[in-house]
Structure formats: structure tokens, C-alpha cells
């Protein structure tokens, strides 16, 4: 299955992150979003490995270290078709370093690139990973 490498990646990251910070216990099956600016990923948990098609869903975004920044935006685009989502998701803080994102809707099957924009101390960092909608 196409999504397996991504999950393997995220499990690897969970172990790494776990070693780095005992407080960081990302949910099972969460996807690791990575940034070129740092080793530490942020975790994106849709509750399922494959995103649904054209059905709104929610996800949790978890930072390993709340000091990594504040979540400013979440977007998703389809690289193959050059379009994003038709809806702007809403972001709600859900504890330190944790956010609930509602109103995500992937309106086509295929590969979507999720990007989370975090801001810390005047610096903006973009974390990304690809997920499959099916």
C-alpha cells in the first residue's frame, strides 16, 4: 500500500522523539510532518492512515515540545493537480503544544501534501508530509 512508507517513517520518528523527550508520545499511526529547519517533527493524527475522500474530517496536531512554536496555519494541496482544499480548516488549541484541526476536506482521491506553519520567536517554519486520500 502506498501509505505504508509514510507510517513506517512516522513510527521511526515516534521512537526518536520519544528518546529525545519523554513527554512526546504521539498517537499511534500519527504522521510525522518534517521541516528542513529542524530534526524534530510535528505529528498529524487523522485517526486513520488514509484520509477519506470528500468527507470532512478532523485531525490532531501535536508538537513534541510546545516551545517549537505556535501553529499558525494548516493547508493541504494536491501536487499532481495544482489545487488546494476548497475549505479553510479551523484550528483550536487543545492543551500545550496540541491543536485540533476541523473542517479538513480532501475532495479528490490521491496524494495530498499537508503543510503546517509554526511560528516561534519571529521565525516561521513549514512542516510537511504527504498522505493519501482514498
Amino acid at each position, binding site marked *: 500500500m502506498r501509505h505504508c512508507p509514510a507510517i513506517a517513517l512516522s513510527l521511526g520518528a515516534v521512537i526518536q522523539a520519544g528518546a529525545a523527550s519523554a513527554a512526546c508520545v504521539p498517537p499511534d499511526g500519527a504522521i510525522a510532518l518534517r521541516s528542513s529547519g529542524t530534526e524534530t517533527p510535528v505529528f498529524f493524527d487523522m485517526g486513520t492512515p488514509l484520509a477519506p*475522500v*470528500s468527507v*470532512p474530517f478532523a485531525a490532531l496536531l501535536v508538537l513534541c515540545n510546545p516551545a517549537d512554536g505556535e501553529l499558525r496555519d494548516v493547508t493541504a494541496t494536491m501536487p*499532481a*493537480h*495544482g*489545487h*488546494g*482544499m*476548497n*475549505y*479553510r*480548516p*479551523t484550528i483550536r488549541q487543545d492543551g500545550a503544544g496540541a491543536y485540533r484541526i*476541523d*473542517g479538513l476536506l480532501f*475532495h*479528490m*482521491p*490521491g496524494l495530498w501534501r499537508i503543510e503546517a506553519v509554526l511560528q516561534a520567536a519571529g521565525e516561521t517554519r513549514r512542516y510537511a508530509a504527504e498522505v493519501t486520500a*482514498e
Partner: protein
Amino acid sequence: MTGRALPALLMVLCLATGAGAEPPRLLLDPDEIAATLRHGPWPPPPPQDPSNRLSGNRDAISLGRILFTSPALSRDGATSCATCHRPDRMFQDGRATPAQARRLPRNSPALVDVAFNRWFGWDGRSDNLWSQSLLPLLNEEEMDMDFGRLKTAAGTAPWRPDYETLFGPLAYRSPEDVAIDISKALAAYQETLLSGPTPFDRFRDALAAGDLTAAAAYPEAAQRGLKLFIGRGNCALCHSGPRFTNGEFHDAAVGYFLPQGGVDPGRHRGLTLLRASPYTLDGSWSDDPDRTGAWAVRSVLDSHADFGRFRVPGLRNVARTAPYMHDGSLSTLGDVIAHYSTIDPERLHADGENILVPLGLSPADASDLEAFLRTIDSE
């Protein structure tokens, strides 16, 4: 997932049916089977609309059925919803566009399964069925009423007692209340217009159950057409899920110039009308304190590509809803398939999605694709 155990079974089936004359065959590979399963199951649980307190109410449904064919709701006293949404024609009219629609000529959509929509109208100007049902009552090219006339009409209509049983004395309802009451009863009725399972669904369910012998009874031409639909044709990118639509808006290279000049702005204008409407799921006329579903109108984004985009129609019972497209410009399913086969990329938005390309279907491919579409038929 379910596809994983299938290759072995397929082998067995092929071996078992090896010799005899023309044994039924299953032509799909495991990935295609997995893709097929995503177009079901059907039917889904019946729709429920928390924004309409009359949703599922038997008295409202029977009043709605009467109102749907009631010419008392039109200024000319001769037009009803059923004029353009004929019960004997899947609740559409078989015309390219209604005779009286001149300003914005659009094809009358079939109303079967309409309650499952996220957006209503070709341009998605409504986010719920009752507000969409109010529009034709007020549109001067449809029933051409206003709130005051609707209340007056209710006063002398044969269905007044049924109305008052549901909503109380007419005298206590404002003209706007009456208009919304009527719209909600119409919506409650339209929610009951549901299609049943089709030969395609029996095929899909047999695959889901792993009954490959039953599945192989599905005609080979339809299987080949299905393979095109989910494969090379890319159809399932937009016509996805159990209703064969993603419910969103795309450019399928159908012209949007109007015969009288000007253009049909499609989704672009739909969004403007939606945002101006007091009757959305986020408005005070919704009966749902939780505002279920209002996230969509709150968070839907504008895109310059919305211009000339139209809602992807569902394809259930499509063989019985000709003519096709938002302007009714294609008369037969064969014409639609020829359109996708020879599509002119110049007619697509320059910043488009890189999905639609001329498919160059052979006559055999085209007839297979049509055979497949004809099996999504609940008759």
C-alpha cells in the same frame, strides 16, 4: 485492503472456469476491485436534515408531496415544481433547459437522491434543501411568487388545513414564515426521493463479500467500461464515492457562453449568492441549535478558478436523465463520452487541474464505458 486476498482466488476462478464455452469472467485486478468497492455500499442510511425540524415528519412529507404538484404556488397558476421535475422522469424534465428560463438557462437536475448533496444547484448557491426549494418559488422565471403572494395563496389553497395542522393558524405566521414553512415541507418530501440498488451495486456487493462467481455475472462490457472509468479515463477522480460525485465544482470543458451573450459564471456567482443568503445552515432560519453542516458555508474558500465551474453531477440513474451538463448541451450518454474522448484542452482553465485530456477512446471503449454507466440504474 479487501483486495489483498483476491489474487489467489482469482487464479482459482480462472482455472475452475478454464475450459467451457464463454464462462463468465472477472476482469478486474485487485487494485481495481478496491477502487470499485469505494463506489458503495448503496443505498446509504436515509438522509436526515437537522436544520429542518420537519425532516422525516410523515405529515410534512405528505403535505410536501401535495405542494410539489400544486400550481397554486405559481403566479401564473399553471406551474408547479413537477412541471420541471417530473415524477415520471426521475424528477427532471428531459429538456435541455426549461422553456421559460432565459436569463440563466440551465438544465433541470433530477431530484432523486438530492438530499445527499452538500451543495444545491449547478453553482451550489444553497447549502440545504429547504433554502434551495424556496428559490424557484421566488424566481421570476420559475414560479414568480413573493412572500405575500405565497401567504395569500395558502389562504385559499385546498391544502390549507394540512398546513395549519403542522404550523398552526395561518394568521399567526408572517409571510416569510409561510414561505419557509412551505419550503421545509417541500424539502421533507424531496428527502424521500431515493434510488435503490443497481446491477452495479450487486456486482460491488458480490466483490465485497468475496463471491467472485456472482461478481463474474456482471457483463464483461460493463466491467471493461468500469476499468476505464476508474483507470485511464480518470472519471472517478471527480465522480467518486457511492454517488459518483465528490459534490464539489470542476471545469469539465463545457462552454459557459450564453446564447443571448454573456457568460454563466457558475460557482463564482454561486458563492456570492450563498454568502448573501439569510437561509443557510449558519443562519437563524435553521432549526438546528448545533448548526450541523454550517462549517461548509463558514469556511468555503473563493478561488479565481471558480469562474465557469459547475457541480459534479452524480451518475446514479444517469441513463434516464438526458440531456446532460449544466446547460443541457449534450443530448445522449454517447455525446458525453465523445465529449470526454475528444475534449479540447483549450477550453479548460489555463490554471486547471491537469486531469482532463482527450481520451481518444475507440468505438469499442466508448461503448464499454456507456455499458458501464447504464448498469448504475435502479430500475
